[in-house]
């Protein structure tokens, strides 16, 4: 091969090499561009994706918050309603107790003033004490003003010999007659119930003590005095006293109705 031919061959290979190199450079350039584009896309997607996720999470978190809030509100309402129910229940029980108390007081009062017969009044007092309070043994003592002595009018459920007259101011019973203040003990608190009854209730008409009601023993199933008992003692202290007093006045008048004479006497005075 001649020198010229050799040069020509080398030049051709250089040309070919240059072409390959150029193509390699272009390909590299394309790859870099593609890489750049993809990185841009990735960045774009990376930016877009977290932003989307945060929004949904935020929305869901917000909803959860709302539901939590609603749940708390509903629980709070349930608690309020439960409290109201409890209050209504308590109030209902209070009203029931009040209703029963009023019924006891009304019926006792109604019965006590339903007659002018002393024996009948004593029976009614006994019924009230036995059936409503649960008293098995008691006595009624009336005041003899002239002798300042309390004398037994009736003894129920106990031997009458245990119950004797008492001077006003003497012992527990006499002290109650003097002061007009009721005295209550527990059923087991007295060593001698006839000297120191478990309850001594003054019988009062207006401001005057006309006698006392002594309670000696309760029914075995009756554990202690209740608020209703105390209300009944208040009622007996005044209404039973008035009923006894009125019945005794009626007896003194030989059972003639007082109001006729009084009414006509007043009428006559007015006319004169």
């Amino acid at each position, binding site marked *: 091969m001649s020198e010229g031919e050799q040069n020509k061959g080398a030049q051709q290979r250089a040309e070919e090499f240059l072409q390959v190199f150029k193509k390699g450079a272009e390909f590299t350039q394309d790859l870099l561009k593609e890489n750049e584009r993809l990185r841009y896309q990735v960045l774009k997607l990376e930016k877009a994706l977290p932003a989307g996720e945060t929004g949904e999470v935020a929305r869901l978190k917000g909803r959860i918050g709302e539901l939590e809030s609603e749940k708390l509100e509903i629980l709070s309402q349930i608690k309020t309603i439960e409290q109201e129910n409890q209050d209504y229940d308590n109030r209902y029980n209070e009203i029931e107790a009040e209703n029963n108390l009023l019924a*006891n007081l009304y*019926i006792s009062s*109604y*019965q006590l003033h339903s007659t002018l017969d002393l024996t009948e009044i004593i029976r009614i007092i006994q*019924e009230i004490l*036995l*059936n*409503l309070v*649960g008293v098995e043994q008691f006595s009624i003592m009336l005041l003899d003003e002239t002798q300042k002595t309390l004398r037994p009018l009736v003894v129920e459920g106990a031997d009458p010999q245990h119950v004797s007259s008492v001077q006003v101011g003497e012992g527990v019973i006499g002290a109650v007659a003097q002061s007009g203040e009721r005295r209550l003990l527990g059923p087991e608190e007295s060593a001698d119930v006839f000297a120191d009854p478990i309850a001594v209730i003054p019988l009062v008409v207006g401001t005057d003590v006309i006698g006392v009601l002594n309670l000696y023993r309760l*029914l075995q199933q009756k554990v202690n005095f209740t608020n209703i008992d105390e209300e009944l003692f208040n009622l007996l202290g005044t209404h039973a006293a008035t009923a006894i007093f009125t019945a005794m006045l009626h007896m003194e008048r030989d059972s003639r109705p007082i109001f006729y004479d009084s009414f006509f006497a007043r009428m006559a005075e007015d006319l004169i």
Partner: protein
Amino acid sequence: MDTFKVLVVEDSPTMRQLIVFALKRIRGLQIAEANDGVGGLKKLSAEKFDLILTDINMPIMDGLKLVSLIRNDPQYKDVPVVVITTEGAQEDRDRALALGANEYITKPIQTAKIIDVVKRLLAVSG
């Protein structure tokens, strides 16, 4: 609404009035009253009752005798009988229940308990 006839046999007017007052709180009850066991039997033979409340200590015929007669009467052998009494001893309770009383309530009066027992025995809610 169902109506039930209830007979109250009690010699104490105060107690009778209180029991009737308690029973009137239950809707649908017709209440009749008798002073003693004999009066109670007369009422029972004149009309049919769904429940009977009776005291024990009564004149003429006591409550235990009444319970016994009620249980021997085919018409009343299944009718509930409630005894309301001052007798708090266990043997008194056992005797009344053995004779056929369904419930035994002791005095002093327990209005709420009477209402509960009657409602339960008659299966009423009102």
